């Protein structure tokens, strides 16, 4: 490993990129605190209005948790009211029955919720979509049953009353001030989280789990963490809720309330904590104005959920933010060169990749049937073969997406065994996909930053990551598109974003799965140029491709697959004149 700090663009130039600004959010935080204190001072110190604001403030902290798990990480949770309930009950039981101080009760509530959140997160190991929704509903229903029936602990349907407020903050103004300050803290935390490495990883998991895995992200761990953070925010909201109303009961934290919280998040905009804030205050205060609808308010929430999903998928805040969005300016000036040869290069033998008797069977189908070949360090190695010959399966086995039936894969002499994709990426291989897998909810730059954040890469701090990502984008010629949403680029350019993402991780071995698929002839020419430049830098590349012109232009070595078997292996000249290869492509019988 090199101990030298990687070269980066001057920090003052990088400051136009939000994620590279350490002080980002400080002015907003200060403004938020001032508003919190003002509202607390101006609001009435007791009575109905105070209760409404208090309810909105404590709920909004929980709804910010939904932003993390649903908005950032794309995992549905229909148990957020349950987490508020756990937090509120922990606070109530500890302060009332055990005489614990409020602050310690709050910390305990957050910790207990975090533990339950992690447990629920573990359920997301192999489950997504409606299965996960069902798990969270079950969790919510069981929680409500426990709150109602475990009378010894929870007081049953009567709940717990007489919950104290912290010493010195018993007054309505003071306690509301505490709630609002913590709300500001929760909102800012959630907002900063989105721009952090962890937040980017969550969004990558949301947008494309498979690509997230091969970018080195431990998908399962990220989901569990998202559930944990979400539950902790729920617990904080619940703990404050208990102090606000000095009384908790099971009917405050039912499945219906979870739906109400979901509606709040969706209405405001589930991509931003500001949306959560807006949605929560709207839905707490609005029904008070529309009292005549009280009978039907849940029906209206239900209808609102459907209408929001159809007409306002980004929520109120998302809708407004899109119209106010200013594109970050282009970073000017020269960029440090992209370090294409990673730190480990040249240390571990002459082969970057060794494949030994690799087989993959799907039931009776032998997609790969004992493949062996080596990829020499510094070479461009092409893997070709007719459709259905097992090329993409091979790449998926190498990168850990499929488990091999038998055989061995060694990356720089290190056996890969049954390592999952993110562990293989950590050890130095990155890849692209035949059907482009970019993270659609993120900008071009953020996509490539996720590549630069590959575990095992030499860049760590945000400025260096941004700088490395910009260098990678510069290399593929997309530097000026850095702040655009990736989905707004044409198809060919999205492919370059994917290549830049793989390059930003400074891999030992780059795997390209049909990079020319879907490109027009000009774009193919550019791609060929790009691959030649990569080759010039000495990067080891294993490329699957159909386009023979491209292969002939860049490949040092060709391996040919047919029906899951290796039928030829050698230099382009040898392989392309091999009779069995010609037969496989042209369908002629092999001459005896």
């Amino acid at each position: 490993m090199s101990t030298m700090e990687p070269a980066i663009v001057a920090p003052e130039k990088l400051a136009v990129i939000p994620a590279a600004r350490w002080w980002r959010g400080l002015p907003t935080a200060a403004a938020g605190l001032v508003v919190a204190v003002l509202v607390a001072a101006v609001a009435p110190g007791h009575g109905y209005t105070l209760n409404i604001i208090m309810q909105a403030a404590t709920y909004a902290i929980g709804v910010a948790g939904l932003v993390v798990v649903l908005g950032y990480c794309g995992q549905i949770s229909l148990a957020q009211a349950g987490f508020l309930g756990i937090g509120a009950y922990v606070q109530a039981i500890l302060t009332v029955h055990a005489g614990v101080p409020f602050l310690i009760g709050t910390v305990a509530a957050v910790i207990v919720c975090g533990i339950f959140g992690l447990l629920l997160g573990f359920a997301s190991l192999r489950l997504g979509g409606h299965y996960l929704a069902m798990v969270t509903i079950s969790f919510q229903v069981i929680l409500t049953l426990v709150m109602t029936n475990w009378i010894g602990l929870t007081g049953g349907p009567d709940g717990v009353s007489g919950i104290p407020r912290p010493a010195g903050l018993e007054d309505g103004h003071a306690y509301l001030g505490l709630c609002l300050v913590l709300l500001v803290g929760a909102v800012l935390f959630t907002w900063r989280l989105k721009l952090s490495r962890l937040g980017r990883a969550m969004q990558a998991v949301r947008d494309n789990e498979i690509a997230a895995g091969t970018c080195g992200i431990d998908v399962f761990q990220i989901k569990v963490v998202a559930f944990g953070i979400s539950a902790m925010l729920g617990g904080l909201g619940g703990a404050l809720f208990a102090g606000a109303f000095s009384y908790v009961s099971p009917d405050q934290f039912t499945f219906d309330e979870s739906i109400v919280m979901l509606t709040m998040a969706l209405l405001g905009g589930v991509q931003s904590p500001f949306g959560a804030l807006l949605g929560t205050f709207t839905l707490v205060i609005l029904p008070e104005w529309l009292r005549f609808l009280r009978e039907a308010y849940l029906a209206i929430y239900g209808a609102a959920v459907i209408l929001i999903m159809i007409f306002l998928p980004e929520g109120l805040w998302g809708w407004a933010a899109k119209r106010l969005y200013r594109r970050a300016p282009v970073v000017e000036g020269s960029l440090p060169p992209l370090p294409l040869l990673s730190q480990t290069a040249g240390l571990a033998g002459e082969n970057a990749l060794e494949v030994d008797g690799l087989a993959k069977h799907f039931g009776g189908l032998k997609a790969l049937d004992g493949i062996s070949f080596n990829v020499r360090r510094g070479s461009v190695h092409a893997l070709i073969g007719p459709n259905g010959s097992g090329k993409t399966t091979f790449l998926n086995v190498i990168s850990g997406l499929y488990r091999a039936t038998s055989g061995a894969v060694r990356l720089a002499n290190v056996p890969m065994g049954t390592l999952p994709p993110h562990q293989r990426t950590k050890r130095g291989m990155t890849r692209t996909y035949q059907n482009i897998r970019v993270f659609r909810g993120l900008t071009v730059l953020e996509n490539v930053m996720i590549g630069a954040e590959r575990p095992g890469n030499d860049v760590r701090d945000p400025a260096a990551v941004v700088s490395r990502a910009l260098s990678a984008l510069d290399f593929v010629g997309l530097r000026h598109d850095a702040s655009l949403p990736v989905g707004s680029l044409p198809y060919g350019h999205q492919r370059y974003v994917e290549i830049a993402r793989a390059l930003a991780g400074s891999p030992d071995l780059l795997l390209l799965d049909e990079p020319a698929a879907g490109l027009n002839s000009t774009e193919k020419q550019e791609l060929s140029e790009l691959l030649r430049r990569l080759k010039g830098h000495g990067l080891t590349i294993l490329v699957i491709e159909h386009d023979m012109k491209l292969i002939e232009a860049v490949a040092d070595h060709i391996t040919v697959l047919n029906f899951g078997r290796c039928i030829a292996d050698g230099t382009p000249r040898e392989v392309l004149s091999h009779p069995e290869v010609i037969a496989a492509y042209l369908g002629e019988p092999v001459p005896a």
Partner: protein
Amino acid sequence: MNFAQGQFSMLGAYILLVLFVGVGLPYWAAFLASIILMAGFGVLFAGAVYWPLRNRGQLTVIISTIGASILLPNAVLALYGPSPATVPTLFDNPGFMAGSVFVDTQYLSIIAFTILMVILQYLIFEKTMLGKKLQATSQDKEMAAMLGIPVAIMVLITFAYSAALGALAGVLVAPVLFVSVGMGATIALKAFAANIIGGFGSIPGAILGGIIIGLAETLGATYLSTPYKDAYGFIILLLVLLVRPQGLFGELIAEKA
């Protein structure tokens, strides 16, 4: 996946109630009419809740049907009030004694209808071209469209069929459970749980899942603790999901890279 499926049963039962008790139609006519009306409602439902979101990912549709599952019972609640109503049984004879066990006619007719519907469903889905087209649509809409299957019509048929089936379940259990706005949620969550335990798309799995949940709740309530009756089914569901997420009879479908 439709989280409002149980609400179809609730609506079916309410339509039966309105037509039979309110309008005064003969029982069999109200019975048939509620199923036919619900098939029509299924088409409306598909058009409002599913169709506008069909290209926007699974999560969006899930959330939208959850919205519908909140809207429907609460709309009925606002219109009809919270008090549960009773509906007469299909047959006048309440039941008979088989040895020392009393056999309720309504339960017998539920079982008979279930067997009938399972056979009918098997015949439709496995033996007819329509069934094949429906299955093709559910597995891969794009491919189905390319093969000339009218995907929109198939989706509407699916929703109409499932709404009608839901309504049938609703009118059958109505005399047993009472008709209330909450019945949909109970039916939906349990049916859904049974489906997951058995494995999505497997009819024997769904039946076995239902039996497992019923047994777990009854045995749990008898031997462990009665107030937690509703929890046992869910606990079994959580265990099944953690150990064998594809369900007992389901096949694991991996995403293709």
